[in-house]
Each structure stands twice: as C-alpha cells, then as structure tokens.
C-alpha cells in the first residue's frame, strides 16, 4: 500500500461530486423546490469544482493519462501556484464549498461526496503529495533526412540470422539454421488455393 497516491482517487471523487452537485442543483432549481436558491448555488459550486478538478495531476512514478482537452485548464490552474498545488488548501476549500449544499435534500448527496473527497485530499496532503501539472512534451521537429545515414540493407523476406552469420561465431546456431543460400526456406512454401 506504500505507493498509493490518494490525490488521484480524491481527484476522481471530487470530479464526480462536482457533477452530482450540478445535477442536484438543476433538479432543485427546475423543480422550484423549497429553498431552491441553494440549488442555484450548487450548480455554480459544481461547475467550479469540475473546472478545478478536471486537469489531472502528474503521477510521481509512471506515466499519467491525461483527460481529453485538459491542457487548457492545466494552464489556468497552474496560475494559482501554491493555492492549487497544495492539497491542504483543496481539502479545506472542498469542505467549505460542500456545506451550503447540505441544506437542500436534492444537493445533499453532492455535499456528502465532496466532503469525502475533501477527506481523501486531507490524507493526501498529510502524506506530502502535491499537484504537479502535466507539461506538454516539446515536440522535436523531425529533420527531413537528418537521421537517415544509410538505408536498410537487408529488406524482408529475411532468412534467419544464422544463415548470414559465420559458423565460427555462433555455438548453437547450426541446429536451427537452414542449409542453403540466403533466401532458402526450411520447408518448401506452397501456395495452397482453397
């Protein structure tokens, strides 16, 4: 369990909570439930949480799968520096955002889910994790013709390597190699027309 980055799961949970807040908010506002203005708040909070959590942070070890189109939000989230890098800030922020939605039944599920995400972020922060943006790799301009020193000299079909190497170099090649010239196949290949 030593290498779990809790922030990755917290990120998924927070994103889901944002969507749930938006849905609950829309239902409450459209249905004009009692105290529906909490629903309107919930939609705004949900959109904010979704935008903040959409860019996935970089994993410490291994490659990270980017979400589609996340580079635009990455540049925005990066701008806030320590506020978005630090997970203690995110934990507190999500906890505070979740509270007003708790007053309405339609959005209380979003509150619970966002509060859980906040708890997981707290665990991540305690373990010293940080949000690192995924930087796009600089694209190397392919120099036309720059790496072609010599075209391939041995195009397929190629016989096994043993046929071309000198027998003294390989100790165990003899048994497996075919007897004849470079293009002889071990078994005659016939074209069977079915």
């Amino acid at each position, binding site marked *: 369990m030593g290498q779990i980055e809790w922030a990755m799961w917290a990120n998924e949970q927070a994103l889901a909570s944002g969507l749930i807040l938006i849905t609950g908010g829309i239902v*409450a506002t459209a249905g004009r*439930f009692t105290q529906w203005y909490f629903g309107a708040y919930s939609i705004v909070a949900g959109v904010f949480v979704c935008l903040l959590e959409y860019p*996935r942070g970089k994993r410490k070890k291994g490659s990270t799968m980017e979400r589609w189109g996340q580079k635009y939000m990455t540049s925005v989230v990066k701008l806030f520096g320590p506020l978005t890098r630090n997970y203690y800030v995110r934990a507190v922020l999500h906890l505070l955002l979740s509270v007003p939605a708790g007053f309405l*039944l339609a959005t209380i599920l979003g509150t619970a889910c966002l509060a859980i995400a906040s708890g997981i972020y707290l665990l991540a922060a305690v373990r010293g994790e940080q949000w690192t943006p995924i930087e796009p790799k600089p694209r190397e301009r392919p120099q036309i013709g720059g790496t072609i020193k010599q075209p391939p000299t041995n195009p397929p079909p190629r016989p096994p390597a043993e046929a071309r190497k000198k027998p003294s170099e390989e100790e*165990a090649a003899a048994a*497996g190699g075919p007897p004849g010239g470079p293009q002889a196949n071990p078994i005659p290949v016939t074209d069977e027309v079915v």
Partner: protein
Amino acid sequence: MGNCMVNHWFSVLFLAVWLGLNIFLFVDAFLKYEKADRYYYTRKILGSTLACARASALCLNFNSMLILLPVCRSLLSFLRGTCSLCSRTLRKQLDHNLTFHKLVAYMICLHTAIHIIAHLFNFDRYSRSRQATDGSLASILSSLSHDEKKGGSWLNPIQFRNTTVEYVTFTSIAGLTGVIMTIALILMVTSATEFIRRSYFEVFWYTHHLFIFYILGLGIHGIGGIVRGQTEESINEGHPHKCAEYFEMWDDHDCHCRLPEFEGQPPESWKWILAPVILYICERILRFYRSQQKVVITKVVMHPSKVLELQMNKRGFSMEVGQYIFVNCPSISLLEWHPFTLTSAPEEDFFSIHIRAAGDWTENLIRAFEQQYSPIPRIEVDGPFGTASEDVFQYEVAVLVGAGIGVTPFASILKSIWYKFQCADHNLKTKKSVVGVFLCGPRTLAKSLRKCCHRYSSLDPRKVQFYFNKENF
C-alpha cells in the same frame, strides 16, 4: 464484417436481450403505476414521478440481481465445463464477464440517478401537499392519520406540517438506506475507473467491498412501505373514479363515499437479490476453501528482466493451455489475489507461473523469493480459470502474437505442442511441425531463448523444430 458477426453474434444477441429486458421492465412498471386504480389517489399528489421512481426501482432490482453473477468465477468455470457440447465461441463469451459486470454497473448508475431525481420530486410534492391548507384533494389525502388506532391507513409519509424532507429522509429506513447505498455506489465507481484500477489496484479492490453495504441496504430499503396504494376493500367500497370528485364530502355521513384507506407495498428487492447473494457467498467460501489447500513450491527461478518463475504442485490441480490462476501470498497481503497465466503445459507434472515486477505486490513477492536464507513464503492458489486456448491445436497454421510478459500463454501452448508431438498425439492437427519464434528484446533473453529453441528442436525433421529469429534491422 462477416468475420465480426461469426465471432460476436452471441455477445450482440445477449446484450440485445439484456437491454430489451431492461426497457420492457421499465415500461411495464411505468404503465402499471401510471394507470392502475390502486395508485389513483397517490398519483393525485405525486403525478408521473411515482411511476418513474417505481419503474427505475424495478430495473435496479433486475440489474442488482445480475451484477453479482459475472464475478462468481467458480460458477462460470462450472458453466464452461458443463457446456462442453456448446461451441467454443459460445464458451469464450464467458471470458467477457467483467465487461458485462461494468455494463450492468453503468445501468445501475443510470437508474439510480432516475430513481433519486424522481423521489426528490415525490418528497417535494408530499411536503407541499402536507403543508397545503386549501382543502384540495391532495391536502385531504395528506391529512389521513398515521395513528395506528385509527387504522394506520395513511398516504403521505410526512406526518406533521413542520417536518422537513431532510428529516424524513434521514429518519426513514428507505431514505437512510438510500443515502448509504448511493454513497457506497459512488465510491465504488470512482475507485473503479481504469486509471485508478491500473495504477493503484488496492484502492479499487478494497473500496469495491463496499458492495456489501449496497446489497444490505437494498435488502431492507423497502421495509417501511412508503409507497402506498389503496386497499382492495377501500376500492370496492368506493371506486376512485366515482368517489374522487366528491372528496369534499367524504366527512359527511350521507355521502356514499368514505375516506379511502391505504396500505404499503411489501418489500420485493430481497426476492431479486437473494439467489445471487447466496451464490456469491458460496463462491467466496469455495475460494477460501481452495486457498487453504496446500501448495508445494518445487522450484523457484529468477529470470532476467525481473521475472520470477514459480513451479508448484497442488493436489487435484488440473489445467488446460491458456488458463490462469489467482495467487495470494499471505505474508505480503492477506486479502489480495492477483491473476497470472499458467506457463506450464498440462502434460507436465507441475504447474508454473512467470511473474514480472509491475507494482507493489509483485515487487514485494520477487524480493521475498530473492532472499535465499529465509523460508520460502507460503503461496495460496485458486483456479484454474479461463477458456482454454485449445483452438490452436485444430489448425495447421497458427499465428500467435504476444509481447513482453504477454507471451506467457504461448509458452504453455508451445510446450504442449512439443509434448503432444513426443507422444504422437493424433488429435494434433498442427502437422507442419515448424515453430518460428521471433524476439525483439534484450541480449540475455535472446541467448537463453536461442538455447531453448535449439534444445527442444528435434533432429528428426518429422518432429517439431523451433526456429529462433531476432530482429536484425
């Protein structure tokens, strides 16, 4: 397109039947609650959202019944074994059990959303009609007493005018279990995304056990009988179509209609999930029993590129080519079971797996076996599972493509071919006894693989020959 249909017709048919059943159950329940006389008065307060909620509830029951079945590995192995007359294409569909499990999970999420949204509207409407003072039909129905002495034939679960919907949600069994179930479902889904599963498997595995809360909650969700319909006697005494318009006079003794009486529906979710739950409990007991059987490790080999080979013996173990086993090492993790393809041939007197270091558990396992002076860690094995790759023996020419640790099933197949040739097995159609092995990899591996090919190649040209090729461009 033709090949696609031949290989996948059963999957397409199966999914079509499953979707069709979902749609049928939804529409059937929707129409029942929308048209039935029993719920005439209930609909007066709630409208169509009653039918919406009940229809999605029925689909939830159906899908909750189905979701446990694809993860009963032993049941699937049993079906695979008994269905030996069925074509291999059919039996191969059993290998797609996890895909089906995910599809059913998505359907459960969809219907949960519909169910919750519908009930949010229902609660709001119940709340409004309880607070209404306009003497409308809805408010009169809502004022029917909860008092048991007066028959307890209430309709509106919100008893008092100042009760909030939040209070009802968290003090009724249906509401509380609903919240717990939904939170468990959401946690299960967020920890089961492909990214989390592949990067941090333990998070997925342990969180997924929250399904226990989901199943328990589902079983008791309907106990409170909040969904109320008119009783038979009440309908006989005064049919809603006749009496509804005279609701203002229900209190009068002269009126031929009396106050309608309502009763709750008994819970029915438990009837749907009882059998799969019992099957799953049996499955877990069987896995535990099998895991307690002794596994003797006969040989441990450390290969280059951090690959560990374990050769083992277990009483009563029999395998076929291409199958896999689940392995547990209690000294590393008590609850984790990881699948590994069997690399030995069925003809050998041991079974083996090759494990590559690819995460916490595998690295700890390799480290534990590398220490030569401590006792060998105990291993538990469950299996084998999976559809065997016996097709390869039915064809004269077979092209098997695998990379990295993915060559493991082919190791099993190649060894089995060699053994079958040694025993002159007549069922083996692979007459052209030439096996081309192509390697694109490190030099140490190339050397040992070339040695293996040479060792197993028979000098007799009628028997199997292995030709080793390495990339040379």
